[in-house]
């Protein structure tokens, strides 16, 4: 199958290994992986802040670049939500409405795509560690994805999964929220880190690099060891 990766801006520059791992996972399964190089960002920062004109101009480019893709896979629940749920709203009543609906139907979050579309959950991965899972809010509540990530992790060799208390509580990143209200964002992140650490896990695993980067920047400050790793990196490990 032809799979086109949409690599969000922050994954491209801060977490390129996530996208590389996705390539590895799909190629091992024998798929033809493409990369929409000229699609830079989904437009969510402007959309969430209410600046829909600017969001539209970013999204139009992405819409165009992904127009001919058979399946678009996104390594971020948040950006996948933008494509799947918010593009149809953003373009409602405009000339892009049909294209937005069409893209929404062809776009998938990474774990969702593997489990629900490809029907794969065993990838021969090995990750010798104790991990806990953080549900990104968009994947969890906008896309209703809780099971796929856990399903995939349950087949990883030498991996122990321990659920944290309040696994479904937001980590406090929230895009511009963390810039506008840094003290609240930090407090939320500290609680999330606290819940993750209580499990005694070595790593917190998520489908969203943005949450992980936020937690990492907070964890780095107090120095306590808790790694953060994207699901794709776990699945690409052997």
């Amino acid at each position, binding site marked *: 199958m032809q799979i086109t990766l949409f690599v969000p801006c922050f994954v491209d520059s801060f977490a390129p290994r996530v996208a590389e791992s996705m390539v590895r996972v799909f190629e091992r399964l024998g798929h033809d992986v493409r990369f929409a190089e000229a699609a830079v*960002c989904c437009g969510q920062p402007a959309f969430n802040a209410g600046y829909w004109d600017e969001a539209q101009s970013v999204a139009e480019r992405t819409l165009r670049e992904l127009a001919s893709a058979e399946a678009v896979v996104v390594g971020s629940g948040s950006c996948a939500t933008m494509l799947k749920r918010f593009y149809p709203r953003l373009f409602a009543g405009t000339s892009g409405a049909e294209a937005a609906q069409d893209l929404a139907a062809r776009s998938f979050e990474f774990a969702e795509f593997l489990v629900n579309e490809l029907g794969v959950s065993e990838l021969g991965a090995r990750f010798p560690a104790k991990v806990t899972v953080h549900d990104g*809010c968009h994947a969890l509540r906008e896309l209703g994805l809780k099971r796929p990530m856990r399903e995939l992790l349950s087949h990883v060799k030498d991996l122990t999964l321990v659920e944290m208390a309040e696994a479904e509580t937001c980590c406090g990143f929230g895009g511009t929220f963390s810039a506008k209200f840094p003290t609240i964002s930090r407090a939320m992140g500290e609680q999330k880190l606290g819940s993750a650490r209580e499990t005694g896990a070595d790593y917190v695993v998520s489908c969203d690099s943005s949450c992980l980067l936020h937690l990492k920047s907070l964890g780095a400050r107090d120095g306590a060891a808790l790694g953060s790793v994207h699901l794709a990196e776990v699945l690409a490990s052997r």
Partner: protein
Amino acid sequence: MTSAKSEFQERSARVAPDLEHRARMTRQLRLYSTQRAAREGAYGDFQAARRAAGETKWQALMALDRHLLEFSEKLEARGAKVHWAADGAEARAIVLDVLSKRQAKLVVKSKAMTAEEIGLAEALAERGIEVVESDLGEFIMQLRKEPPYHIVFPAMHLSRDEVGELFHAELAAERTDDPEALTMIARRVLRQKYVAADAGITGANFAVAETGMISITENEGNARLGAALPSCMITLVGIEKVLPKLEDLALFLPLLATAGAGQLLTGYNTLYAGPRAPGESDGPEEYHVVLLDNGRSELLADPELRDALRCIRCGACLNVCPVFRNVGGHTYGTTYPGPIGAVLTPSLRQQDGFEHLPDASSLCGACSETCPVGIDLHHHLLEHRRRRAVTDPSPLWHAVFRAYAFVCARPALYERLISFARFGTRLLRWAARIGVAQAARLASERELPEPAALTFRERWRRR
């Protein structure tokens, strides 16, 4: 200059890092979550109950005019007087008029967020009428001269010790931190007030159109006493609280109890149908119901946001909101805090200055997920943000997003900027290492994530 926004920032910066506050809120609200989850389990299908409730409220709102008239006719037929108040000022004037005709000096009041919304207690106090809050939590907050911390748990942020100290200082009671003893102290004070009060003021949970009845649900029996003992009863109710049929209560009373407090059913559920009828032995001589609009019809006319009027004030969205948990109820500076407050305040407050509240959310959606009547709360926040960006854009953020859109539409420029940012980070680190003070300060203040040496785009091309 202090604005509601800067006060919000200042207060949240103080409360959010407060570890004791954090621990208390976590303890309280985890208990709520556990109990609520257990009660939800008692429903055959809790999600179906939510959908039915949302649908019922929706239908009630779509025919609100008819339901309100029906409610009023049925209730007045039994001798009650129904008043229509367009805004807070009218509602206050109506209540004051009723009270002054009866030369009332002392009023017992049970929980009513609508009264907070229109500043009723303050207005009565200005006219020399003593208002005693009879709900235990509200009683505590009144002694502290503070508004409620939460719309259902008004004093949730206080410890038993603090309440004991407060009762000792304000009521000259013996020091204790025993909850039962504290309740007894409050009861001793309150029982005297019920007997002496000239009128009782209540809020309402539902107004049943079919029968013209007010439904009040409570755990302490204080609203019942306030309704039964004084000779005059006044109920202040928002017009959105209408339910079409009496049988709707069979769904809404348990749902409110479950969502609001993790109870199967609240302790006391009472229907008020009018003043004492001939031959009856109890009940008030006069019963007045004040129907409060205060921005609600305007909200009803708004197709994008009107479903916020479904709200039954259970407070569940506050309980699950990570922002509320961290900043507490007083940080908002509004009658309704938390997600529902951020959604309603711009509509009901009828004054500007609270537009920052929809921004103060990570849009996690926990509120919408928990709302028992299915209000799409976090998407309402998005809609508020969108409208504000159109009517009153922030010059800074607008410029930021214009620049962002400009760059994202030009992948080559985007790539050049990424390399520049990478270079900038290195330069900053190097400057910090060789002791440039400003760079060192910046680097020590936050751990900005480190850009990778090569972007994915660069790596992809090298494959």
